[in-house]
């Protein structure tokens, strides 16, 4: 799995951090999404997929399964 984040459309709703805090965070400077684990372990794949679906501004994506 490969996760990409587009900070130009992120609105900092924080759904990703709420769903998989191991993988996503919000920057201290501007509050926008940061990816802690771009290639997360398998047991987190389901939660990452859910975070992608929950993101209200489609700022995160799975670029490769």
């Amino acid at each position: 799995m490969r996760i990409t984040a587009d900070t130009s459309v992120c609105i900092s709703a924080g759904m990703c951090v709420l769903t998989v805090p191991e993988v996503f965070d919000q920057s201290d400077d501007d509050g926008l999404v940061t990816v802690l684990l771009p290639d997360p372990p398998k047991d987190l794949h389901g939660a990452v997929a859910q975070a992608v679906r929950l993101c209200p501004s489609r700022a995160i994506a799975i670029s490769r399964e």
Partner: protein
Amino acid sequence: MPPTTSPESMTFPFQRQCPFAPPPEYDRLRAGEPVAKVPMALGGSAWLVTRYEDVRTVLSSPAFSADGTRPGFPRILPGQAQILERPPFIRMDPPQHGFYRRMIIQEFTHKRIKTMRPAIQAAVDRLLDDLLAGPRPVDLVEAFALPVPSLVICELLGVPYDDHEFFQSRSRAALTRASTAEQFATALGELRAYMDGLITRKQQDPGDDLMSRLVTDHLEPVGELGRDELVMMCLMLLNAGHETTVNMISLGTMALLEHPDQLAALRSDPELLPGTVEELLRYLSIADFVTARIAAEDTELGGAAIRAGDGVIALLAAADWDPGAFPEPERFDVHRGKRHHVAFGYGVHQCIGQNLARMELEIAFSSLFERIPTLRLAASADELPYKHGTLLYGVHELPVTW
């Protein structure tokens, strides 16, 4: 199930019949005409959207604009036109919307919200001390549900809580359909003047709060924020910060008391608390029709041909009770374990304070039922004064005893 009421005979907004469920018209529309044009109480018409996926589409597609200055933008409140002339950023489209939202998003990140937890817990504990020492029955709205979010948003913004009677009464007048346009204008004018005065005080003596940071970082040196814009932004945050959560605490408490098996499940397993809050957000969807839009172009949605300039209302409560998204939506189930509701909206306008709201609700419910395990309603749920004529649904008073 065929529609039993034809859209022609309906006028929006509809009234909720059961304290918790959305208006029954939503189910009929979703089953018969999921994107339906209906007359608005204030004149004109708007498309009502009742299916979950369609609601998400409206709230995330650029074909539907949140720009309140566009002619024909749907209005719910008689005086609303005065706000829509120069709206806060919740009624703007990208890129302007992002320009303003980004000035404050770092104030609402998970990390920042967590630093507020001890202060919120202390405020809740203090309010419950006072409540337990006072007479029974007591109005839970006045004694608990309103002061909790009011204290929190005042602390965050840097608004003196001692002024709460002033701004709460004016907010109430501004958010009810019972106010005339003149009454709305008076309330809004007083609130604007109050905020303007507060901004002057922040300019002279900035504190460690959100308003001071907006003044220092965005109003003064670079002038990227006009003074009127700052006034509206602060008013919007103050209102959104307490007018929503008060209803979630009061109605949420009531929903738990009216579903004793669910409350018992929560009590026996505190791990269910976050899921309970999500389920209450879905089940109550109190901001139901705040998410008005206007079509920016001709488009097709759910079989309906929508023309540029048509009003569109993405009904959050209808989406959150769509059986296609939430099986048996009428069942209040703390074990549901789903977070894909749209109670905080969807798209770029999704609530900026949602994670603060989640934390306030978790602390409020856990503390309330721990400190007062025998809490019960002191009136019949059928007889309570519900907020039918307001922008946000709730209950005016909630008498409780123990």
